[in-house]
């Protein structure tokens, strides 16, 4: 979908920003959270955890929209997100969305 300008009701909408908590040593490296995050916020960390797996790493801090998908899809209870704040909708967000 393409937008050619900021929607008129942009002021009444906002983007939730989540803060991610990763319990590194619980992770078994299945990769579900990394693969299915709708905003591609996560990637595999280069270092190993205690068990010898690569836990996820937050690459784009501030781009997590607190959708909780990684939290409910993680088989190991190793990741969760909490709502940090709401961000105002800007023209850049709309432009970024149109590109996707």
């Amino acid at each position, binding site marked *: 979908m393409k937008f050619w300008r900021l929607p008129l009701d942009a002021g009444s909408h906002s983007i939730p920003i989540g803060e991610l908590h990763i*319990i590194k040593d*619980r992770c078994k490296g299945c990769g579900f959270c990394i693969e299915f995050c709708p905003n591609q916020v996560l990637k595999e960390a280069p270092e190993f955890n205690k068990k010898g797996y690569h836990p996820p790493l937050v690459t784009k801090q501030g781009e997590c929209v607190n959708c909780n998908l990684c939290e409910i899809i993680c088989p190991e*209870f190793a990741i969760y997100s909490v709502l940090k704040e709401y961000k105002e909708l800007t023209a850049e967000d709309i432009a970024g969305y149109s590109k996707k």
Partner: protein
Amino acid sequence: MKIRYQPIVPFDQEGFNRLKDEQHGLHPDDQYLKPGRIPHIWCPGCGLGVVLNTYINALKMTGIPIDRSVVVSGIGCTGRVAGYLNMDTYHTTHGRAIPFATGLSLTRPDLSVTVFSGDGDLFAIGGNHFIHAARRNVNLKVICVNNFNYGMTGGQVAPTTPVSARTTTTPYGNSEASFNLPYLAHASGAVYVARWTTFHARQLVNAIAETFSIDGFTFIEVIAPCPVGYGRPNKIGSGLDEMIYYKENSIVQNGADPRNVDIALKGKIVVGKFSEEKRPTFLGEYEEKILKKFRRTET
């Protein structure tokens, strides 16, 4: 020859307590998990953790207190769920989760009784119990994790293994037809029938939460990866590869005819809520047709 025995190491209670204190409570869902039990035994990439996670989220969503909900499992990797949840859970003998849960549900109608078990447990050794509980419409919430094989015992063929699929006991490919579980559940009398995969975590949370408020025998089939017993011999790959296969090959079709939702090896998977109906429950009918008569003669 002299046999040397391993020295018996006493259980390190202090070490266990330390581990429990360090590890428990790090995640908000830990309040639903038994202290000291995580990490669980399931293999990396196994879908069972996802199903447990979605069940906990459905509990959180509906706000059912844990002292009002009970989980009954049979034997198998899926059966281990009973050992991880920090509430009243029962790990019964192989195939007998439904008879046990039936007794529980009839004597304590105030509890929400969920049966959590594998396809082998519920449909091979426990097949008869399943069809009769569904026929009688006992108030049970059944979640069946279908990974197309017997995971725990080493990946043997199950009644759900698709034709031509390889398992340790069908090295040339399976020659038997497999059960279509939603069709079987619907035909036996289940009042709610749905199927989702572990990729559809959000829909699964909603479906499980929805069944909590339904009076009667509900059935949710969850297709889950077992990379060890099913993914590897069938060249599907890791747990993640199997999840991507679900993502690419699932067709959401609510209200689909359960007769047409068979799953072939590496074929399309029809998911969705297939049916919901209203039917008198076992306890309701027993009260109405039998107990009432006796009450009348008593007074």
